[in-house]
């Protein structure tokens, strides 16, 4: 036994030394020119009989079955209507969604723009035959055929809804009320040590958006298209911010608790979390800051290797239908994707406050999308930083 462990130790050492000594070009592999190849996968021609079960991978609150809040239940009616028994798994970040979906255990996923293209490129999701999804006809036209949910005019999913990442603060502690993201990025904040930020590489875009407004000299035109110099500037902003951060959140339950106890008093959040906390009588308020925000536009996608595709289509049809889309949108706090959903929402001011269907407003949100080497803002004279560089940068920021 001892000999084996000594051998293993020697092996490990040899690896280490070799690792130190080797040299070569930079290790990241990218597809040619920053473009990516899309596997040619067939889509469903017609619907068959429902398989009896469907496994749903979703953002928190997207597939509520009434256990957390009896008022929020759109899974049970789906099960009753279709005979598809649904098992739901929530994920916390887009990266987690991609990883979990790759296991092949899920039939349908609510993918944000920073996950959808990766799933398409890896062949994990297949094109969606929108003719088979009845609700699709009522989806806002400006959500169809976008760069994050379609390839060459072929849809890869059914839009679910969209919204902005908002700034939340404790009204009893943070005074006066903040109006800009500078409240979380400016050094020497009076709330240093009680600021929170989203624990994911995509949060770099929030810093880039802040720089777009405060340092125009950097020439950032698109927060997901950063060359090395611009990325470095964003990293510096985040490193300054880190000194004032109490903790990063990706687990929404952790953020809810931190705001309740007051360990965190200001930071980025989802509208759904703010709504939940207000319901719990925690003194919080949330706004879309004046410089706009990053945000998401989600799409339901079907797994290429799914064995419950009929149930998956049934789920997409159900969740995108006016009535259910309205329920989810209102519960979560985002704009619905279905143009008729606003007629179903109980709060008459809801659609107005979320600017549902307002294309001009929707264009002001910088939707999460995967940074790739080919600059998304159209620049061709420089190479932009890709997502693996962002992941590495995020580890660097956290230190």
């Amino acid at each position, binding site marked *: 036994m*001892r000999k*084996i*462990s*000594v051998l*293993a*130790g020697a*092996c*490990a*050492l040899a*690896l*280490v030394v*070799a*690792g*130190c000594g*080797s*040299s*070569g070009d930079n*290790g*990241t*592999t*990218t*597809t040619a020119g920053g473009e*990516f190849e899309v596997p040619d996968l067939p889509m469903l021609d017609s619907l068959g009989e429902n398989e009896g079960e469907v496994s749903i991978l979703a953002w928190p609150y997207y597939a509520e079955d009434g256990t957390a809040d009896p008022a929020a239940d759109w899974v049970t009616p789906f099960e009753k209507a279709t005979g598809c028994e649904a098992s739901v798994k929530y994920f916390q*970040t887009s*990266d*987690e969604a*991609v*990883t979990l979906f*790759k296991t092949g255990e899920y039939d349908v996923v609510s993918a944000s723009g920073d996950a959808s293209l*990766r799933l398409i*490129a*890896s062949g994990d999701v297949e094109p969606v035959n929108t003719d088979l999804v009845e609700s699709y006809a009522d989806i806002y036209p400006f959500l169809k055929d976008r760069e994050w949910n379609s390839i060459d005019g072929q849809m890869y999913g059914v839009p679910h809804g969209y919204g902005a990442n908002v700034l939340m603060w404790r009204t009893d502690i943070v005074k006066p009320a903040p109006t800009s993201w500078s409240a979380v990025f400016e050094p020497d904040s009076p709330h240093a*040590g009680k600021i929170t930020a989203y624990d*994911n*590489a995509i949060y770099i875009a929030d810093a880039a958006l802040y720089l777009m407004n405060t340092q125009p000299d950097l020439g950032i035109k698109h927060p997901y298209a950063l060359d090395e110099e611009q990325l470095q500037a964003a990293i510096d902003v985040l490193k300054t911010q*880190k000194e004032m*951060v*109490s*903790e*990063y959140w990706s687990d929404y339950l*952790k953020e809810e*608790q*931190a705001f309740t*106890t*007051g*360990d965190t008093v200001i930071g980025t959040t989802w509208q759904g979390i703010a709504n939940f906390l207000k319901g719990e009588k925690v003194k919080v308020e949330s706004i879309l800051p004046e410089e706009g925000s990053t945000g998401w536009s989600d799409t339901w996608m079907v797994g290429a290797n799914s064995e419950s595709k009929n149930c998956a289509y049934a789920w997409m049809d159900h969740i995108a239908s006016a009535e259910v889309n309205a329920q989810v949108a209102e519960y979560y706090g985002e704009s619905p994707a279905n143009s008729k959903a606003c007629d179903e929402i109980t709060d008459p001011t809801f659609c107005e406050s979320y600017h549902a269907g307002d294309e001009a407003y929707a264009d002001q949100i910088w939707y999460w999308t*995967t940074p*790739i080497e080919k600059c998304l803002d159209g620049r061709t004279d420089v190479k932009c930083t*890709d*997502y*693996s560089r962002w*992941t*590495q940068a995020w*580890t*660097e920021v*956290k*230190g």
Partner: protein
Amino acid sequence: MSAILHRRPGLRLGLLLTPPMLWLGVAYLGALGALFITSLWGQNSFTGEIERSWTLDNFRDLFQLEVYRTITFRTLGIAALVTIVDAAVAFPIALYMAKVASPRVQRLLVIAVLMPLWASYLVKAFAWRGMLSEGGLVAWLAVPFGLDSPGYGLTATIITLAYLWLPYMIIPIFAGLERLPDSLLEASSDLGARSGHTMRHVVLPLAFPALVAGSIFTFSLSMGDYIAVRIVGGTNQMLGNVVYDNVGAANNLPFAAAVATIPVVVMLFYLAAVRRTGALDNL
């Protein structure tokens, strides 16, 4: 059948030992081997698919980027401090249990020490999150003394981990001290040594291997931990978090495997050093 087995002791032994040896060889060492091999592969940065071509890039990144050095040293520091705190707390408790307490009290204390192991790790970690939070129990106790809760961060992580692994330190020391004959203590005092002197020159040297045995548990468990630091660690990350983020978030299995070799290498050195103290005989 039984007759054959009776006549051939070699076959008997072989049948008896094959399943556990397979388990050790295939499931355990095999997994470690797979880990090393994976760490030599690359990854497509966009789709996250593993590319099975040999490369040392993962190890180069690991050694060239300063952030991973920082995280490694932070993890080692946390593990060392947790071990020291646990040793300091566990030694008096174990000494009392082994040498002072009556057999009845001793049994009760053993149960009391092992009791926290019955509760879920997460429950205990979240309990510490609650206690260390703003206006929580720790703050409430500390404020009268003009102090405050340390808040979430390294201190909180060390406190939580030290609490979680304390039983793993107490039990080996207790076992070691129980084997220490009372006659040695009596002889020491007969020869005129005060209790402090006896402690330093008789008990500690004899209990040292047991202490080291306990430290293997606390050190290795702390090295690999990534949950407590997520719950109470504030913005800090440890090696385990880097592995977790690369598996769960970035889906970069090869790099995760490369990071995971660090604790393995550290523990191999640690065990090699420990073997010289004879502590492995105490496990």
